[in-house]
């Protein structure tokens, strides 16, 4: 038998298996879409995967530029994805994310969270001490309008709801906060220095403004305004900074083969924390729009909202909100 005839015979024998490929692909599609809970389909999958791999290898040699090969490449890729990831259920995917993956990220970032919180707190103390000692330095941290308002004995937050409705205010605030949070994270890509800058600057501003309003006897009202949303908002800023710092360290001290690969792995891991941060900031925006500027809400209620939401954040980040402890005991 000459080479061409042999090639034709091999191709013929390969193409006669088309029926098997169709059946294998149909089973894979059923399993991957979750439409099948047939045990026979599942047990067939491993055999189908081997069959498709075997025939694809032959098709790559015998029919490199054919639709048959294209079909086998697609069917094989689908079988591979189905075998290695299983069926897709949004509910269980999201549950896994919030119950297992995000808490694992938080645990791995614990040193960074402690450091970023410390930096923020120290910067706030420094800002407070600076403006308390040298009040004229407030001009470095606050706008002239804000300074003038406070010097008139008023907070800039008073009457906020007369200017903007709560709903619009919430959307404005949450989008601004999400941007700041993402910026704090991305700033970490500058070898962690950007995160240091963002946390330091925000801490300095917070301390400085508090010192300034306290000198004018408005420290209490400002704390009362901030307490409902600020506990979580400031914590989220520190969390984003911590996630960014982890990526920055991966660039400074790569843990994998290359700096880029190290960066990619760190970003992939710590980026998940940002999902929780964004979700928490949506809540902060709503509180800051509806509760904080509302003079009708008593201080004890604000405290309750602030502490309650902060505990909710802890439960979310530890996975307990989604029954992590119960899952471990089982």
């Amino acid at each position, binding site marked *: 038998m000459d080479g061409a005839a042999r090639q034709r015979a091999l191709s013929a024998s390969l193409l006669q298996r*088309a029926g098997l*490929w169709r059946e294998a692909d149909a089973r894979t599609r059923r399993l991957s879409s979750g439409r099948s809970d047939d045990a026979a389909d599942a047990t067939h999958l491993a055999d189908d995967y081997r069959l498709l791999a075997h025939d694809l*290898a032959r098709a790559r040699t015998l029919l490199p530029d054919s639709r048959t090969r294209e*079909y086998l490449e697609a069917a094989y*890729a689908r079988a591979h*994805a189905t075998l*290695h990831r299983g069926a897709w259920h949004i509910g269980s995917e999201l549950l896994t*994310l919030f119950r297992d993956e995000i808490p694992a990220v938080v645990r791995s970032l614990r040193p960074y969270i402690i450091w970023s919180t410390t930096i923020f707190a120290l910067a706030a103390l420094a800002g407070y001490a600076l403006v308390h000692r040298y009040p004229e330095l407030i001009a470095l941290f606050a706008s002239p309008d804000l300074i003038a308002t406070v010097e008139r004995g008023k907070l800039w937050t008073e009457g906020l709801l007369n200017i903007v409705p709560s709903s619009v205010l919430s959307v404005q605030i949450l989008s601004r906060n999400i941007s700041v949070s993402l910026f704090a994270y991305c700033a970490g890509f500058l070898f962690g220095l950007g995160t240091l800058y963002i946390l330091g600057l925000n801490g300095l501003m917070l301390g400085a403004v508090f010192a300034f309003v306290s000198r004018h006897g408005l420290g209490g009202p400002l704390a009362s305004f901030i307490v409902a949303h600020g506990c979580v908002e400031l914590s989220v800023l520190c969390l984003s900074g911590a996630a960014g710092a982890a990526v920055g360290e991966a660039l400074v001290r790569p843990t994998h083969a290359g700096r880029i690969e190290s960066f990619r792995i760190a*970003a992939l891991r710590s980026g998940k924390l940002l999902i929780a941060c964004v979700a928490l900031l949506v809540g902060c925006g709503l509180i800051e729009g509806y509760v904080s500027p509302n003079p009708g809400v008593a201080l004890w209620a604000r405290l309750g909202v602030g502490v309650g939401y902060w505990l909710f954040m802890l439960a979310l980040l530890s996975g307990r909100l989604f029954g992590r402890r119960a899952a471990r005991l089982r």
Partner: protein
Amino acid sequence: MSAPLRDLTVDSVTGIDVSLPVAGPGARAYAFLLDWHIRLIVALAWFVVGALLYNGRPSLAPPLSNDARWFGTVVAPALAIYFLYHCVLELAMRGSTPGKRMAGVRLVARDGGSPSAGALLTRNVFRLVDSLPLCYGVGLISVVLTRDHLRIGDMAAGTLLVFERAEARLPGSAAAAPGAGHLDAAGAEIVAELLERWSTLTPEARQRLARQVLERYGGGEPAASGGDPDAAWRAELERLASSR
């Protein structure tokens, strides 16, 4: 001439790599534009219908006083449709969206499988960074410059966009299986494809293509008779395909 597609190659226990063609900036931009139009149209439709129902007359004007009901029923849902479109649909459609489907692309993880919910959400959170300073400038530059055409969100989430081969179909198996005659496997595919598309072609195109195929693979022209010439050409092709 366009550059050849880069493939994402994934190792497999079988020893045969899984190969997925990576989508380039063109396919990505096409999918994005389709999605952008869809979400814009749906969000606008919601706003218009909501405003008409709210006002109770043909007017889209917002109320003069601050009204939470206007914001909650008209503005917020429209904004949610526009801004959460990718996030929700990628989760619901397993890394795809209507625009991506139409463009024939889908999202995969680096191991070739479907991205996790965490990866999909991370990718969408980073949309804010990619969209800076305007018109997805950062994302576009990143897509053009990186080897796998990744935007920042894809890098952070460990995802990439590949061409969907779902439409790859087998040629008719009986026709495609080559016999020991003139037809090789490639020829069998061509004949099978021509027969599949027969009804969509004009009579002139059918006869021209059939003549070319028959000349190339050694088939003869149909004998002249008073019958339907189309049917005669088709019969000749079928005879060639089944020749053994």
